[in-house]
């Protein structure tokens, strides 16, 4: 092949304070191929595509398009180069119609006015060409997620599209919708487009991938042709050595049931039965949108409960507000530390004061400064937050240290059940090990612990029991040897009897 690749990177790196998100990666995409990026959360996949999409700028290294070095400073510049990215977070305006979204910023004009009729007709034509059955006049907010994704993809086909980047496009699609998407991807590939495809769903790769690049800890492990490899080999590359280093040995001693959930219905949760025991870590696995997080957000009173019964330590806490649930001894640690967890503009100390005065130092109307100070020092020592960082504004701390502060908050309430929702999202390896030790200590001290995670190795290595969620329901409960990647993944896609 003499033709240069559509897009290639050379020694591409991206560093954040304390983390090397991407480390000297060489990557290339040819015309007419589907190139899969594979790796754990935090392996650098998202960082790599954010650099190609112009959402971020590299610290060092080079990107070439058709052999020419380029610098991509913004998403608009990337699009001008023919690179279009469909992120997990869509860039659609929910209150506008499908046609308006597709033509956003380049509306067909009739004099000074927008030519709505032409716009709608063109949108209908573009959608039909790609085989998408969507009404161009429909409001985006009212479409199901799969159709929103089609609109997002249709937006890409303006001008000279040569590279289409799809970030976990099947994360919340049903099997039929996935089939539909794959047909589309294969047609685009036949038309000569290059497609970068990011996914955790290893069983999809054989159907569409030409080559797979495996990333781990920001570095490229290898690029292999799909025909030369198999699932086991890819997983081995993805997981690598660190699994044994990072995860602690936990001595689970399952005791009495503290939380019992019967037939829970809530937003995104469709009839869940579940129980959590003292002295063990219960892992919750599932795709984005499977209800694995929403189920516990409903239990913790963050979201509303529609139906069902939740019993906690003999008390009925169904549908109670967060404050009451916490007082009963249940702590929910949010997956969104920036928006829901921490006051980003305040120092770590102020953040912890809030929880101490509501929790273990909550006596009387006054702030007990001395008691709070002593407890704070103890808890920060416990989560290994260096004294140097305690007076710093949260926004200026690394993701790992921010997460340590969030964990510190969970230790202020003397809780009996700890629900950790994505406990290590955006956290470096060193801090991960420390956080895992904290989780292990809780379980070994006889507390009940739930770990909800999209990071499969995390769930597999911490949990004594794994509940797999799919489409708002429990699709499997696994113990012992059944806790392995293949078995868990199998239940990710369960849809009324049929496997993917």
């Amino acid at each position, binding site marked *: 092949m003499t033709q240069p690749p559509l897009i290639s990177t050379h020694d591409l790196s991206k560093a954040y*304070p304390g983390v090397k998100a991407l480390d000297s990666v060489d990557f290339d995409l040819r015309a007419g191929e589907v190139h899969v990026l594979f790796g754990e959360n935090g392996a650098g996949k998202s960082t790599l595509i954010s650099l190609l999409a112009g959402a971020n700028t590299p610290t060092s290294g080079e990107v070439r398009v058709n052999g020419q070095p380029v610098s991509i400073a913004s998403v608009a510049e990337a699009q001008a180069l023919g690179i279009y990215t469909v992120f997990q977070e869509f860039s659609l305006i929910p209150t506008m119609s499908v046609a308006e979204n597709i033509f956003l910023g380049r509306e067909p004009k009739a004099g000074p006015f927008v030519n709505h009729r032409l716009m709608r007709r063109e949108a209908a034509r573009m959608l039909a060409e790609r085989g998408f059955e969507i009404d161009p006049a429909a409001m985006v907010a009212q479409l199901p997620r799969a159709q929103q994704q089609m609109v997002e993809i249709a937006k890409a086909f303006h001008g000279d599209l040569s590279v289409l980047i799809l970030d976990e496009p099947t994360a919340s699609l049903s099997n039929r919708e996935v089939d539909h998407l794959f047909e589309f991807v294969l047609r685009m590939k036949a038309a000569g487009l290059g497609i970068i495809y990011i996914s955790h769903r290893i069983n999809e790769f054989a159907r569409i991938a030409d080559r797979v690049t495996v990333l781990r800890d920001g570095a490229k492990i290898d690029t292999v042709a799909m025909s030369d490899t198999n699932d086991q080999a890819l997983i081995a590359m993805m997981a690598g050595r660190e699994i044994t280093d990072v995860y602690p040995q936990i001595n689970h001693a399952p005791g009495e049931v503290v939380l019992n959930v019967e037939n829970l219905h809530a937003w995104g949760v469709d009839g869940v039965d579940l129980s959590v025991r003292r002295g063990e870590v219960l892992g919750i696995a599932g795709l984005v949108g499977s209800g694995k997080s929403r189920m516990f957000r409903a239990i913790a009173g*963050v979201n509303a409960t529609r139906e069902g019964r939740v019993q906690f330590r003999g008390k009925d806490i169904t549908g109670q507000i*967060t*404050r009451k649930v*916490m*007082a009963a001894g249940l702590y*929910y640690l*949010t997956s969104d530390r920036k*928006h*829901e*967890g*921490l*006051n*980003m*503009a*305040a120092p770590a100390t*102020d*953040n912890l*004061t*809030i*929880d101490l*005065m*509501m*929790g273990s130092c*909550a006596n*009387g*109307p*006054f*702030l007990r*400064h001395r008691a709070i100070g002593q407890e704070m020092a103890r808890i920060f020592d416990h989560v290994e937050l260096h004294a140097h960082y305690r007076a710093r*504004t949260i*926004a*200026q701390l690394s993701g790992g240290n921010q997460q340590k502060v969030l964990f510190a*908050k969970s230790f202020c*309430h003397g809780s009996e059940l700890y629900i950790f929702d994505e406990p290590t999202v955006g956290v470096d390896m060193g801090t991960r090990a420390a956080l895992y030790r904290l989780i292990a200590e809780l379980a070994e001290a006889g507390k009940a612990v739930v770990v909800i995670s999209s990071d499969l190795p995390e769930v597999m290595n911490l949990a004594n029991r794994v509940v797999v969620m799919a489409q708002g329901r429990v699709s499997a409960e696994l113990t012992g040897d059944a806790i392995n990647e293949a078995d868990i993944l199998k239940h990710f896609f369960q849809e009324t009897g049929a496997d993917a």
Partner: protein
Amino acid sequence: MNTATETRFSPLRIARTVFIRVGVLPFLLAAALVVFSLTSQAFLTTQNLINVGRQSVYLILVSMGQMLVLISGGFDLSVGMVIALSSVVSAMTMVALMPMFPDAVWLVIALGALAGFAVAAVVGALNGVGVAVFGVSPFIMTLGVASAGAGLALFLTGGVPVSNLPFTFGDTFGFGRIWNVPVPVLIAIVVIFVMWIYMAHMRNGAQIYAVGGNIKAANLSGIDTRRTLIRVYVICALLAGLTGLLLTARVETGDANMGSSMALESIAACVIAGVSLRGGIGRVENVVLGGFFIILVQNGMNLAQISSYMQMVVLGSLLILAVVFDQLRYRMIMGQR
């Protein structure tokens, strides 16, 4: 992060640290002192500064309440209306009760004050419930309530000031002195002290900072965010009501036009004193200085014979300037620059 080659003592560094800690106020205060002592000989005298102190009592009281609301992440445009309404209601109550209890002046004053506080509390609760329970934006809620209340005050009085208040009322709370200190000043000192205890040393105060800093995080820490928000608006209205009573005593009439500029002035006093419009940040002692500063500037402009119309221009500009500096400071705190 840049590699700081020298961490030596430099005026710029100190200025930066003061700015991040306290805000723009120290710099503005210094500038005002210099400018006005140059424009008028009478400005920098003990007597004038005592006067400014006495006059700033009313704004400081309102600003204490406004500060709570701002720290909780909202703001209250209805404080001026509460001043007017509590003035009118308390004055009308006293005038109505006087003939019934001619020998019990203090009872009449107490009942009048109670009526003023009651109406303030109702307005505050209305604001609080609208914002906390129904999720109306503080801007719209307090603006709407301000219009409704102002209309009510004018309707009650027919636009005519309420006079013939008990002589003792004005004599005590308007012009009275205890240990040679004016009563309004004493009341303000007590309020400032209580507010300082409340915000710095009480759990309820700390909850207000938490709610303003990140209301979702506060909820996940077990704080009753609704109750905290309602409490904040009620306290703010009560302080505005107190101010209405003191001003009524001072001018010895109930007036529906009283306090019309207080919303703007109190927000300006707070923001200049480093209370963040984003919520979560602000200190009682700085706000006291902020209120003092606004009155000081007005006093300096009066002495320099600047017309009251131009003074409005200056005040508006100061508010915007303070917000610009607030943005700058927030970026510095967040380490963005």
